[in-house]
């Protein structure tokens, strides 16, 4: 009897210290939050009517924020003790994981069929169609960057540069030379690809963080040049009046020689939207098909080997320089094509669409998707862009939440939602390789 009570007392004591520990931690977090937010949240400054600086206090908001941190700290600590260490990705048991990968084989075709039918299902909802086009654009961008970051392991933080080069090349070619969509599109892609080679060439020797920041610098330089070279790019005013694409020469307008008139049906602006949807879908699928095929060819395998171990590649006689350049060029090609599509869809482009935020967003999509995984990247694009749409009306908080999401993603699931890599050739059976074994590349 006395043993039992002693044991119970001990357990109670441990639990108490557990609670005490959690409370202490929460108090500390709340105190830190109080200091951090005291001035930034507690005081609100603004430029006053006569140009001087005025301020007012927001102690109520400060208090609620500190309280939220206090509560949140308790919750996180409790979660941590329930789930084991927060860094573990073992929330999903392996049996469910393999079940999911079987389902994964079904998800891709199901998603594809659904995507084809979106304009049919949502024909009347212009908003959904526009959103779908946006999602597909980012899916294509994600697949394009996936070649550089996911397959070849080259840290590119300036992917927006290729997007911008593609968009502006298309815009300038179309408005200055009057060439059709189907001519300008590949030209824009090629120009972006050339830029990718030019960018890749000097930065090849750089590794990891250095490569990342140099590509970031290149992206910013492109944007600054676009903003300042007014005679060529129109500067901050951008390029407008970009012609819309035609269905092989048949314009999608209400005119008599328009698409609707020819088919004898009533004109609706939705026709063009649906057409654009299928154009971007085709482009995205082309990106996907090329990437999958390239993975099975020596160049794709060389990209992945480069990511795994560059030194070993050199010892096997692989030309690292050309391998990296082809990765850059291919990724740039797809980015440029997406940019050209973007230009023709909007009819107007300006430098504001090509900031570092875009590069970060596409990179987040690639990492969230699980680098190298086509399906993962598509799902991640859907999640990200869909998530962004939820913040309509709360735009200020959008990037804040995005930043937080990136931090949390890295802490909890740095390998992305798809946790494995599929081999490209096999003798007997294709067995997925866990992401823990796959290297992430050092540039």
């Amino acid at each position, binding site marked *: 009897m006395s043993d039992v009570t002693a044991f119970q007392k001990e357990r109670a004591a441990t639990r108490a210290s557990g609670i005490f520990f959690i409370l202490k931690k929460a108090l500390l977090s709340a105190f830190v939050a109080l200091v951090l937010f005291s001035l930034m949240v507690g005081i609100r400054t603004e430029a006053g009517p006569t140009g001087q600086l005025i301020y007012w206090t927001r102690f109520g908001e400060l208090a609620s924020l500190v309280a939220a941190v206090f509560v949140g700290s308790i919750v996180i600590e409790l979660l941590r003790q329930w789930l084991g260490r927060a860094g573990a990705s073992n929330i999903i048991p392996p049996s469910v994981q393999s079940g999911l990968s079987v389902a994964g084989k079904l998800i891709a075709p199901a998603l594809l069929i659904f995507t084809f039918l979106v304009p049919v299902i949502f024909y009347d909802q212009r908003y959904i169609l526009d959103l779908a086009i946006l999602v597909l654009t980012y899916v294509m961008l994600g697949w394009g960057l996936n070649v550089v970051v996911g397959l070849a392991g080259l840290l590119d933080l300036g992917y927006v540069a290729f997007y911008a080069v593609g968009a502006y090349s298309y815009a300038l070619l179309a408005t200055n030379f009057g060439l059709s969509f189907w001519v300008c599109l590949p030209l824009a892609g090629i120009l972006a690809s050339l830029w990718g080679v030019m960018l890749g060439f000097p930065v090849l020797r750089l590794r990891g963080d250095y490569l990342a920041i140099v590509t970031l610098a290149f992206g910013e330089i492109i944007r600054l040049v676009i903003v300042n070279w007014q005679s060529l790019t129109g500067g901050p005013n951008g390029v407008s009046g970009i012609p819309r694409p035609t269905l092989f020469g048949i314009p999608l307008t209400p005119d008599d020689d328009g698409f609707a008139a020819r088919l004898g049906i009533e004109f609706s602006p939705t026709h063009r939207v649906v057409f654009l949807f299928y154009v971007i879908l085709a482009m995205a699928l082309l990106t996907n098909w090329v990437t999958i095929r390239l993975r099975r060819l*020596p160049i794709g395998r060389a990209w992945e080997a480069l990511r795994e171990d560059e030194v070993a590649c*050199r010892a096997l*006689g692989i030309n690292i320089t050309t391998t990296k350049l082809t990765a850059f060029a291919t990724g740039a090609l797809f980015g440029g094509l997406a940019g050209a599509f973007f230009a023709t869809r909007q009819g107007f482009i300006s430098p504001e669409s090509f900031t570092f935020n875009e590069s970060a967003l596409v990179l987040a999509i690639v990492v969230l998707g699980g680098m190298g995984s086509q399906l993962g990247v598509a799902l991640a694009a859907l999640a990200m862009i869909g998530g962004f749409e939820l913040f309509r009306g709360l735009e200020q908080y959008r990037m804040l939440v995005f930043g937080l999401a990136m931090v949390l993603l890295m802490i909890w699931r740095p390998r992305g939602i798809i946790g494995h890599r599929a081999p490209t050739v096999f003798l007997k059976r294709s067995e997925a390789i866990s992401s823990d074994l796959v290297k992430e590349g050092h540039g």
Partner: protein
Amino acid sequence: MSGANCILSVDRLSMRFGGIVAVNELSFDAGRRKITALIGPNGAGKTTVFNCITGFYRPTGGAMRLTHDGGAEIALERLNDFRISKYAKVARTFQNIRLFPGMTALENLMVAQHNTLMRASGLTFLGLIGAPSWRAAEKRAIERASFWLERIGLIDRADDAAGNLPYGDQRRLEIARAMCTEPALLCLDEPAAGLNVRESGALSELLLSIRADHGTSILLIEHDMAVVMEISDHVVVMDYGVKIAEGSPKEVRDDPKVIAAYLGADEQEAIAVMESDT
């Protein structure tokens, strides 16, 4: 050794790093279709020599002449990087195994055949359209990979991730991968490190068969004296960046200079110990 008998002729090779002289005027020959071992205490500069031969360092002095079977001579000190493997046909393995851990064993061996396959795929374009010539080339590459997997006893694990393989298997896989590049000279950096007696016996057998069946010359760095004694035709001993002895395995084993170097003693003491033994 004359050119016909000697595949690699290293002539007064030197490598400096700032003020440190890692290799000092090293000269030796590696015989054609022979196994040459490079041994010496830790820090003697053996891996540095390897890095010079395989193009990872540019030597600060000296020459390395590689002579192919057909008589073509290649100055290795002028090539570097991937060209050593691609044009000079020198392959190597690494002290700390460098496989591609996230790729299967089969994929690792396919990567090794990159240059052949790139040509066959018409710089990718023929491959993209699925041309029959490409498909045939790919099939041949898979067959070669399968041959080597069988040779090293890993055919049943061909589709397993290389990172999941046990240590001994990884070592052999690395050698198989190097052989898939069809090299004239195979450089092995401590291939027996961490292997138990049975595994190093299998390794010796593998290397002997590589020499016999494929006519590949082998240059290896090794600390495991059993392996060195069993398979080497010729041994070069280094210490502090210079060659201190050279000859057949038996000659080197009984050389007091070599014993002294390994024991960290000086030569007189070594002779004294040896004489007191007999």
